[in-house]
C-alpha cells in the first residue's frame, strides 16, 4: 500500500508544480471564465501536458500511454486542483478515456486512445439525466436499428461535451430506469446526425453540456463492453474517475487551506492577528485534520487501483464521502475566515469555494457514497 510518494512521484510533483505555477496560475482560470472563452480551457496547454506524458499516465504503452498508475496520475491531478486548472482531465481521461480503456476492444482503443494521450482528442461521458448522482437512473434509450442502434434521449452535465470529439453515451437497451442491468455504452461521434450539444456555464467556471440525442444512429462496433451489461464497465469507470477527482480535490484543499492559514497569520483585527483567537485556531486544526485524513484515504484508494486490490469500490466511496465532507468543511471555513473580503469576486478564495462545491456534488455526494460503502460492507 503506497501511502507515501515514491522518489519518482516526488520529482513528478515538483515538475507539475513548476509547470502549473508558471503556465497556469489561478488568474488564468479567472481570465478564461471572464472572457467567456469558447473552449473554457487551453488546447495548447493540454497538448503540452500530452507531450509531457501526463495525459497518458493511466493508459498502456501500446496506445501511446505512459502505463503508470493512479499514484502518478493523482500527483498531477492534485497539482491541477491546486491552481484550479480547468483542463479536461475528468472528462477526457477519467470518464471518457477510462470507458474506452476498460470497455473498448483493441480496434477502438487503437483508434481513439493514442490521440487522447497526445492531447489531440477530447472525450466525454454522457450519463447524467438527473441532478443528483444516480448512475443507473438512465432513461435515454437505444433501440436496435439494422446493424446498429438508434439513440434517443437527453443528457445533462456532460463535462466538456461542447468540445469532445467523441461522447461515450450510456443508454438503456433493456430494463427500466434505475436498473443496473440493461445499460449499454456507445461511442458517439460529435458530428453524428441528430446529436445536438449545448454548452452550459457552471458556477466553478468549468463547462458541461446538455446533449440531445434525436435518433442518433451508431454502429454496433462502437459499443463498449457488452450489450446490456454496460454497468460492469461504467461502475469501474466511476470508481476510477471518483478516485481521480478526489486526488484533484486534495490539491484544492491544500491550497485553500494554506491560503486561509496565511490569512489567519496576517489579517489583523482588534489590534492582533486573527490567528491568535483560539476559536479560529481550533477550527484551523480541524481543517488540517480534514485535509490530512482526505490525503490518506485518497492515497489508499489510488494504490487500491494500482495494486489490483479487490476493494477499489469501497475505497472509492470512502474517498469521495470523505472528500465531499472536507470540501464542505474547508470551503465553508475558507470563506468565513476570510470574512467580507472572501465574499468578493476579486479575492481568489471564492474560486476555490465554488470549485469545491462543484467537486463535492460531482460523481456522488457524501450521502451517496456512505450508502454505497455500507452496501459494499454488507449492511
Amino acid at each position, binding site marked *: 500500500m503506497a501511502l507515501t510518494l515514491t522518489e519518482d512521484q516526488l520529482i513528478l510533483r515538483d515538475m507539475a508544480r513548476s509547470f502549473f505555477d508558471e503556465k497556469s496560475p489561478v488568474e488564468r482560470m479567472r481570465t478564461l471564465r471572464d472572457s467567456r472563452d469558447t473552449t473554457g480551457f487551453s488546447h495548447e496547454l493540454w497538448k503540452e501536458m500530452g507531450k509531457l506524458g501526463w495525459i497518458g499516465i493511466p493508459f498502456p504503452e501500446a496506445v501511446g500511454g505512459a502505463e503508470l498508475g493512479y499514484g502518478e496520475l493523482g500527483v498531477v491531478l492534485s497539482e491541477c486542483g491546486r491552481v484550479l486548472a480547468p483542463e479536461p482531465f475528468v472528462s477526457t481521461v477519467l470518464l471518457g478515456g477510462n470507458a474506452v480503456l476498460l470497455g473498448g476492444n483493441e480496434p477502438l482503443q487503437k483508434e481513439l486512445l493514442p490521440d487522447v494521450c497526445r492531447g489531440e482528442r477530447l472525450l466525454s461521458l454522457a450519463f*447524467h439525466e*438527473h*441532478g*443528483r*448522482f444516480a448512475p443507473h437512473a438512465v432513461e435515454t434509450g437505444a433501440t436496435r436499428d439494422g446493424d446498429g442502434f438508434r439513440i434517443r434521449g437527453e443528457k*445533462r*452535465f456532460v463535462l466538456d461535451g461542447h468540445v469532445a470529439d467523441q461522447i461515450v453515451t450510456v443508454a438503456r437497451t433493456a430494463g427500466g430506469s434505475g436498473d443496473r442491468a440493461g445499460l449499454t455504452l456507445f461511442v458517439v461521434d460529435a458530428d453524428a446526425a441528430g446529436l445536438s450539444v*449545448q454548452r*452550459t*456555464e*457552471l*458556477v*466553478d467556471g468549468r463547462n*458541461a*453540456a*446538455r446533449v440531445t440525442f434525436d435518433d442518433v444512429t451508431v454502429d454496433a462496433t462502437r459499443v463498449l463492453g457488452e450489450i446490456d451489461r454496460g454497468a460492469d464497465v461504467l461502475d469501474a469507470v466511476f470508481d476510477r474517475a471518483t478516485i481521480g477527482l478526489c486526488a484533484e480535490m486534495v490539491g484544492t484543499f491544500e491550497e485553500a487551506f494554506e491560503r486561509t492559514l496565511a490569512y489567519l497569520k496576517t489579517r*489583523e*483585527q*482588534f*489590534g492582533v492577528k486573527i490567528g491568535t*483567537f483560539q*476559536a*479560529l485556531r481550533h477550527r484551523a486544526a480541524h481543517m488540517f485534520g480534514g485535509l490530512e485524513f482526505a490525503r490518506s484515504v485518497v492515497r489508499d484508494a489510488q494504490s487500491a487501483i494500482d495494486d489490483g486490490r479487490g476493494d477499489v469500490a469501497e475505497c472509492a466511496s470512502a474517498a469521495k464521502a470523505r472528500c465531499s465532507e472536507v470540501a*464542505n468543511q474547508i470551503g*465553508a471555513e475558507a*470563506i*468565513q475566515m476570510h*470574512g*467580507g*473580503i*472572501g*465574499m*468578493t*469576486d*476579486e479575492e481568489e478564495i*471564492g474560486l476555490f*469555494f*465554488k470549485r469545491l*462545491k*462543484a467537486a463535492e*456534488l*460531482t460523481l456522488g*455526494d457524501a*450521502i451517496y457514497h456512505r*450508502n454505497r460503502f455500507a452496501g459494499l460492507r454488507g449492511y
Partner: protein
Amino acid sequence: MSSASLEEFREEVHVWIEQTLPAELRVGLRKDLPKESRRRWISALAERGWIVPDWPVEYGGAGLDRKRAAIVKSELAAFRAPTIRGFGVSMLGPTLLEFGTDEQKREFLPPIARDEVQWCQGYSEPGAGSDLASLQTRAVREGDEYVITGQKIWTSYAHVADWIFCLVRTDPDAPKHDGITFILFPMKQPGVTVSPLKLIDGGADFSQVFFDGARAQAKHVVGPVGGGWTVAKRLLQHERTTDGSSEEGGITGAMKESLVDLVKREVGMEDGALADPTIRQRLAAQEMEKRALGLTMARAMAEARAGQATRDIGSLGKYRWASMVKNEQDIAMLALGTQGLGWSAPGFDERELERTKAWLTTRADSIWGGTNEVQLNVIAKRVLQIPE
C-alpha cells in the same frame, strides 16, 4: 388611552389604505412595481406622515405614539403595501432624532420622511471589519469644513445615494474609540469615487467608496467631535432591530419555490416519504430549526414585554439565523446535485439558478452585521458573563 380608541384608529388606517393603495401594489417587496403608481402611493403615504409614523409632525412624521405607529405599520404590512425602508428611514432618522441638533433635524429629516433623499452608510473599511473602531478614514478640519481622505467598503446603494453618514477619524492620537466622529456629507461631489464591488454571487449591490479630499460641513457633525463611536453604536442598534424582521422578507422568503417543494421534486417521494432518508432528516431538522428560531425570538420579546428577567437573545438570534439561512441553501444544493451548479441559462432553469445564487449570497449572512465569531464572543462575554 382606551383600547376602543385604538381599534377605531386601526379601522381608520385600514379604510384609508383600502381606498388609497392601488391593487397592483399589494404584492409585497418587489422591484418590478409600476413606477408611477408606486410614486403616487409613496407621496400619499408621506403626506400623512406614515412613512415614519412615530416621528414628530414637524419633521415629516405623523407624531403617533408607539402603539398607534405600530398599528400603521402592521396595517401596511397586512396589505403588503410598498413602503420605504432605506438607511434614512430606518437608521439615520432615529439617530438624528436622538443626537442631532435642531438645525440638523430640520435640514435632514423632512426629506427622508418624503423619500426625497437617499442615504448610504460609511462604516466598514478594508482593515476595519469586525473591529470597526480601527477605521482609518481621516477628516481634517479646514475652516468651516472637514476634508476627508480614505476608503470605505461594503457600502450598499452608494451609486444611487445622495448623502452618506460616515465614520471618520478626526483625532489620530486619541485612543482608538475616542478619535472617531460621525459626519454627514453629499456623495455627489468631486473627491468621492464609487467603485462597485463584484461579489461571488455575481451581484454588485455593494461598493467601495474612495474619498480623496471630499468635503463635509463642520455643522454636519452629529454628536460631539470625537464622540462618534457612541452615535455609531446606537445607530447599529437600529440596524439590528430592522434585521430582526428580515427573516420573512429576506432571501429565503422570496424564493420562487419553497425548500420543501424543491426537495420533494428533486429527490422524489417513495411511500409517502422523501426517497432519500438522510436528506429527509436534514430537511426536518431545518424546518424545526426555523420554527425554533422564530419561537425563541417571539419568546424573548414576550418575556421582555412581561418584564421577566432573561438573558439577552439578540446575538444568539443573529448567529442561529445566519446558520439556518445558510443551511437551507446547503440542503437545496444537495437536493439539486449538479443541477445546482449552473451559473446561467441555458441548461438550468430559474428555480435552479436562484438557489445557486442564494447559496452564494447567504455565505455572507454569517459575516455581515457582526460575524458569527463576534456574536459568539458577545454571548460569552455579555450574556453569559464569563470573565475574559
